[in-house]
């Protein structure tokens, strides 16, 4: 496992901290200038909560005594079912697939090849996301590989036969202050985490986005994929607002030197 972790770290060398910091506008601050992150969430012109902002994963992994590593990922980055008491309700083949992917030291992990990652892993990878919310559309910009995802909020129906894709096709509607996002149309075999847990092209993912206050975004994921799991399962992947910073231009393939070092035991 140590070798596995090492490869993961090499493969995803995080970009250096930016000197591009610029004060985020519109943040309520205390007299001493500290942001009031527990203030109410902002509202869009239509009265709905506004999720716009730059977000980092909520860190739930303790740092070692010598300090946190640069690429400081939450538990779910390497095990998406970490928070589930009984683990993921695998169909047997899906359990075997994850075992064989782990045994192969992630040689075929799309992340190791600078390919896109799925929408769950995009919420656990410790690189920022930025949400831009406009009428009819929520855009998530991912620092990882300068990629993006669209969530349509204009009332359109889910297409009957979406073209299989890494991020799927997402439509959403409001349930009071919660945005309920339905996504399907995934490619088969997307990795959910670095140990190789998977979803199939039959997967439907429901996300419930809530912003309980200015500084926090809570996203509950329910994965319903009868081909890979015996029943739907639900986890929460929360995000913390990042101020006075922004995404960097991270092109994974630029100067990529790792693939040739992927030696499988």
């Amino acid at each position, binding site marked *: 496992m140590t070798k596995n972790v090492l490869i993961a770290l090499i493969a995803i060398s995080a970009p250096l901290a930016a000197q591009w910091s610029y004060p985020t506008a519109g943040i309520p601050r205390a007299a001493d200038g500290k942001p009031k992150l527990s203030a109410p969430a902002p509202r869009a012109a239509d009265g709905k909560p506004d999720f*716009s902002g730059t977000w980092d994963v909520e860190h739930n992994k303790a740092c070692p005594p010598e300090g946190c590593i640069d690429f400081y990922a939450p538990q779910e980055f390497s095990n998406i079912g970490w928070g589930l008491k009984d683990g993921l309700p695998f169909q047997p083949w899906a359990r075997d697939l994850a075992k064989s992917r782990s045994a192969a030291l992630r040689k075929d992990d799309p992340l190791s090849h600078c390919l896109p990652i799925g929408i769950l892993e995009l919420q656990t990878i410790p690189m920022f996301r930025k949400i831009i919310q*406009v009428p009819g559309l929520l855009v998530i910009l991912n620092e990882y590989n300068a*990629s993006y995802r669209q969530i349509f909020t204009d009332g359109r129906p889910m297409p009957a036969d979406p073209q299989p894709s890494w*991020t799927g096709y997402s439509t959403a509607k409001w349930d009071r202050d919660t945005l309920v996002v339905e996504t399907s149309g995934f490619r088969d075999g997307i990795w959910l985490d670095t140990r190789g847990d998977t979803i199939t092209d039959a997967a439907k993912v429901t996300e419930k986005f809530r912003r309980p206050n200015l500084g926090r975004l809570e996203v509950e994921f329910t994965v319903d994929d009868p081909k890979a799991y015996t029943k739907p399962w639900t986890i929460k992947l929360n995000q913390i607002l990042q101020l006075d910073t922004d*995404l*960097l231009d991270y092109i994974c*393939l630029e100067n990529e030197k790792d693939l040739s070092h992927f030696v499988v035991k």
Partner: protein
Amino acid sequence: MSRVATAILAFLVCAPLPAQWLHYPTPGVPRTKEGKANLSVPAPKTIDGKPDLSGIWASADNKYLQNLAADGIQVPFQPWAEKLYKERSENLGKGRPSEHCLTHGVTDFDALGINWKLVQTPGVIAMLYEAYNHYRQIFLDGRPLPKPTQPAYLGYSVGKWESDTLVVDTTGFNDRGWLDDGGHPQTESLHVTERFRRRDFGHMDLQLIIDDPKAYTKPWGPTLHLNFQPDDEIMESICENEKDVPHMVGK
């Protein structure tokens, strides 16, 4: 351009197949009685009275992707840049970033005849490119251009309104990008100015000014014409299963 280069280009930029969900009617598009998009009505405005550039756009003519000077501009090369450009042309574009699935930069994304989506808010514009599934941000909140410290393919962009024209300045480029597929070189001193003017609902003029004194003796660039793409969407286009590099043998 030689036939081989054309074939290779066509091979590299294989567009995804159209899918039925692409044709969901774009909300807010003015229509004729027959229900067709009416693209000659005035451009829309945002609540704050600025032109709203939002929508899906594509360059009307892909010739500029191959050569930003396609209209006969005499490119004011520095000698070394002219030599490099000739080498790239004679070598059938070998070494172009896209050969290795690496991204376009600002000028070649602008010139690309593949859909991209502009999402406008008062403080920031996001450009979502179908090609490579990459995005670019343009900050409109009045921040200055930072001192470039991290050279990048897409640089750092700030924009401001001059009457109805959005003027975008971008610096912080690396010297690895090519300004176009033909291989006009760029250096880290590149400063691109884009002037976006939405003439009417369906048409946007985009004047490009390429100012890179290390590579060119004076600023130059074309004016591109972008067409609004109604009832269309951007698809996920990932440069994967790449099989071309071994065939890119150059001359």
